[in-house]
Structures are given as structure tokens and as C-alpha cells.
């Protein structure tokens, strides 16, 4: 029997998100579905590198911790978990969940969606969307993952799983899939798919809908942020919804926050592209129904994109960074001098050396007040190189300012990071074949 209302909560908005809000959602949220969205653009390429080092890995590093804290509750409350924590290795994630369940003495059924990994379908002459150049112009390719849509996830529901694990699926599609399944929406009903995509987009960043990334204590105060609740939505068969959060949690649900999140990362509010639909966000309207309750109406869609987007990860060299602090009289001048010393010594070894004075111009170099005189400043120098040893040299040089640089330099730190770049290409839908694998104990 088709339902006329379902409740979906979002308990994680990125791989490193807090663990406790999801537990609270399942415990007291009376959810039908919990979604954990854990894959940013670059996360999957990093996961691919872990999989190359060990074929049993490549899923989300917090998968074990999240499943251990949630599994008994999910089963008790009959809440189905949908998550892209499979990252670069959804099959290994499925097996890992069975292992965790066995250790906890629990029975579980996990449906795993695969097929997003299309790295073997990439060819050097494919054109990068961002710059029009060929893939061959980049460093070594690490990963290629297509954004799958609801079509790939829907077959998983036939098995009535407790958990659905995916790799790369467009974030809103993780939410749209249970709506399509429960309400029996037609995949050609773009108006409903557009509305459902609005709901998914609002929820997908979890705490960003309840006051996280919004709060500011003067003009936009948010209560109880140390205990920020994550959101859920009651979605109706017509695609409208009411967003809310569990009573007793911190944060807030308001029209102002919902507006910020609706527009977050949206390149065209009249045509937000997912594999399922080109959604119109411009016609969405919000109204405050009560404390921490906002209704969402409008939105829609007319067509879906012809091709699917593929995110390609490549090795982009090494980033070297060094930092050191100065305080008191002439702190800014000493910081500047330190930057000049480094630039003169090693500037020519790098295409670009970024010299920031934290406290003056590190975040908003164009807008900041260069005449301000903070009591303390922190020099940060960053450069990238294909050569690891040059990236390391940068930090060493900054550290050596202790004894060779301006007076009173303290707290030097050095970092190197292997850079993974991400670009996009488009691929024909027919070239991408998704599959569902079932694991149960």
C-alpha cells in the first residue's frame, strides 16, 4: 500500500560530521528513513587511494563508528538507513556492516548499489567541463565516479533492506529515491521529482538547515548549538513537505535558514541539475508554521539532463605550508619581513607563493583593512609543486625563521598535503550500468 506521508531525517552532511545528531534522530525522531550524506567532491578520490592501498578499504573512515552507534536503534525503530558511505568501495562497506552486525549479535539486510565507478570508461581525449582541455592534460587519474540518480537506487527497495549503501549518487537523489519508492511517483513526473529534489537539497547538509553555518551571535543568534539537532522532513504525496527537528535539541528551523540552504551551492536557481531532473528552485516558498516548523511548497521541473556528470580525481602535486606568529610592537612589520625573507630565498622555486598574514589579509585579501594594527599576526606561506621535497622545503624554511628571522617568532608549524584535484566530464547514460547486491546474515 502506498503511503501518503513519509518522514526522512538527515544525520550527516559530510564525511566528518558529528555522530550524535543521527543517533538522536533515530531514537526520538520517529523516522521512516535516515540519510547520511558523507561524500564531498573530493572524498571519493581520497577513498579510491585507500582502496588502492588495501582492496578491503575505500569506504567511509567513520562507517564502523556510525554503524555501531546506529544499528541497534535502526532495527528497533524500523528506520531504513540510506547512505553513500560506500564511497569508493560500496561492496566492501556492505560486507563490513554484516561483520559489525554479527559482532553485535544482530541480523541485518544490506542492499549495495554499485556502478558509479567508471574510471575504466574514461579516455584521454574526453573534455573537461571546467576548462575545455582534455583529460590527458591533467596529472595521473585516480578516480572517475558518475553521479547516479534514483533509477540506480530504486531496485534496492525490492529486497526490503534495513540499509542501502551506495557510492557516488547525487546527494538529493539519496532522499528522492525513498519518495519515489513510497509514493509510486512516475520517473517522468518531473514536477514531483523537482519538488522531491528541493526537499533532498534542503536536508542534505544536515546541520546547515538547523542553524549551522548560519549562526552569528549578534544578528542571527541560534540557541543550543553545542547540541545542534539535525533536520527531518515530513514529505507528502504531492511533494510538499514540512521541515522540523527533534524536540529538545539545539538549533532552529526558520524561513531565513531555509532560504540560505535552498540557494546553497546552486549555480542556477531556475535549473538545478541532478541525474533525475532539471529542478526549478526559484518558485519555492517557505512559511513558518510554528516553532521549528517550516512548510515548503512550490518548486518543480520539466525535463532531465541527457548525460550524467562524472567527477574525475587526479594527482595534482603537493601543497607545502609553513606558519609562524609574531605579537606586540611591530608585529605586522616583523611578519611582513619574514614573508619577504622566504620569498627571496625560495620564491622562484614555485609557480606561485601565497604569503598571508593571518589577522590581516589571509581570508579577504581584497577587502581587508591593510592599515589595521592587530596585536598579533600569524604568517602563513603556501606553495605547490610536483616535487614532494620542494613542498617540504617550504615548511622547513618557515621553521628556520626561529633562529634566522625576525625577533620573537613563535609557534612555527609545517604541513605537507598530497593534492587531489577534481574536474568533471559528461558521459552518456547508456555507458553507466548500476547494480544492486544483497548482503544478509
Amino acid at each position: 500500500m502506498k503511503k501518503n506521508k513519509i518522514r526522512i531525517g538527515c544525520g550527516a552532511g559530510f564525511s566528518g560530521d558529528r555522530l550524535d545528531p543521527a543517533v538522536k534522530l533515530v531514537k526520538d525522531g520517529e523516522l521512516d528513513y535516515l540519510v547520511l550524506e558523507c561524500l564531498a567532491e573530493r572524498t571519493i578520490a581520497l577513498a579510491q587511494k585507500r582502496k588502492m592501498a588495501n582492496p578491503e578499504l575505500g569506504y567511509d573512515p567513520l562507517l564502523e563508528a556510525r554503524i555501531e552507534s546506529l544499528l541497534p536503534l535502526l532495527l528497533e525503530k524500523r528506520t531504513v538507513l540510506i547512505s553513500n558511505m560506500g564511497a569508493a568501495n560500496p561492496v566492501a562497506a556492505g560486507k563490513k556492516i554484516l561483520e559489525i552486525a554479527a559482532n553485535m549479535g544482530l541480523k541485518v539486510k544490506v542492499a549495495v548499489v554499485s556502478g558509479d565507478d567508471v574510471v575504466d570508461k574514461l579516455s584521454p581525449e574526453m573534455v573537461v567541463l571546467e576548462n575545455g582541455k582534455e583529460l590527458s592534460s591533467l596529472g595521473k587519474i585516480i578516480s572517475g565516479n558518475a553521479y547516479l540518480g534514483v533509477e540506480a537506487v530504486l531496485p534496492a527497495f525490492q529486497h526490503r533492506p534495513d540499509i542501502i549503501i551506495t557510492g557516488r549518487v547525487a546527494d538529493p537523489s539519496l532522499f528522492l529515491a525513498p519518495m519515489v519508492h513510497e509514493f509510486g511517483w512516475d520517473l517522468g513526473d518531473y514536477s514531483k521529482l523537482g519538488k522531491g529534489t528541493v526537499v533532498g537539497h534542503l536536508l542534505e547538509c544536515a546541520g546547515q538547515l538547523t542553524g549551522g553555518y548560519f549562526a552569528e551571535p549578534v544578528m542571527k543568534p541560534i540557541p543550543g548549538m553545542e547540541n545542534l539537532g539535525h533536520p527531518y522532513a515530513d514529505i507528502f504525496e504531492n511533494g510538499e513537505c514540512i521541515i522540523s527537528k527533534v524536540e529538545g535539541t539545539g538549533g532552529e528551523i526558520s524561513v531565513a535558514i531555509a532560504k540560505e540552504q535552498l540557494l546553497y551551492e546552486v549555480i542556477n536557481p531556475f535549473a538545478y541539475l541532478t541525474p533525475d531532473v532539471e529542478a526549478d528552485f526559484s518558485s519555492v516558498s517557505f512559511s513558518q508554521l510554528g516553532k521549528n516548523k517550516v512548510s515548503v511548497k512550490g518548486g518543480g521541473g520539466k525535463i532531465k539532463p541527457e548525460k550524467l556528470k562524472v567527477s574525475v580525481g587526479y594527482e595534482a602535486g603537493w601543497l607545502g605550508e609553513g606558519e609562524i606568529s609574531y605579537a606586540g610592537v611591530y608585529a605586522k612589520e616583523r611578519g611582513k619581513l619574514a614573508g619577504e625573507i622566504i620569498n627571496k630565498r625560495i620564491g622562484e622555486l614555485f609557480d606561485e607563493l601565497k604569503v598571508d598574514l593571518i589577522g590581516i589579509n589571509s581570508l579577504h585579501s581584497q577587502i581587508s583593512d591593510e592599515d589595521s594594527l592587530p596585536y598579533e599576526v600569524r604568517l602563513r606561506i603556501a606553495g605547490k609543486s610536483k616535487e614532494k621535497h620542494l613542498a617540504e622545503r617550504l615548511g622547513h624554511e618557515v621553521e628556520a625563521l626561529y633562529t634566522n628571522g625576525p625577533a620573537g617568532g613563535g609557534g612555527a608549524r609545517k604541513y605537507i598535503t598530497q593534492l587531489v584535484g577534481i574536474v568533471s566530464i559528461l558521459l552518456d547514460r547508456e555507458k553507466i550500468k548500476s547494480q544492486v547486491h544483497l548482503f544478509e546474515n
Partner: protein
Amino acid sequence: MKKLYELAHSRAGDKGNILILSLIPFQEEDFGLLVDQVTVEKFKKHFAGQVKGEVVRYVLPGLKALQFVCQEALGSGVTTSLSMDTHGKSLSYAFLQLEIDVKKSIESSSIV
């Protein structure tokens, strides 16, 4: 003259090397003032140096919000930029430093 932060709030988002900034008035009646005053030209001038590419402004009367989409705006992009704030998450607060002429706008709207 007023700073934008007195009238509106903003959230920064990113896609590759594209910076996306919303602008939402605290009071819906200030929407017209923002449409009038926060033009693409003024925006580009404010972000000269940060934003190298094209800027598109979307006017959303239903939501009472503006959306600015800026190409070539985040160094070389989130994953390879040398900036400390690679995503440009703090740039909403750079936007809110922009100054607008409130009086001029009130005069011009009272003529209409």
C-alpha cells in the same frame, strides 16, 4: 550609506572554481532596495582581485533573494587552491562589507 550586513544575510557555496553567494534581506521589504543597489557592476568592483571571471546575478522575487554566481573565483578551485579558505566559505562576510546608498534608493523608489 549602509553596510550590507545591516540589512541582509548571505551564505557562500562553491562548485569547483565557482563561488556562489546568496543575498537575503532580513526584512522582505528591503528586497527592492537590494535589487536596486547591489548590481553586478558594484559586486564586481567589490570583489575585484577575488573574482576573475563572469558574474551572473539571479533575481528571485518569490524567495525575496538574490543569487550571485561567480566564475574563476576561488584561486584554481577548491581542490588545488593555495588559499587557507579553499572553499571560500568566509567570503559571504566579505560580501556583507559592501556599502550601499540607502537614501538614494529611497528617493528613487518614492518617485516611482
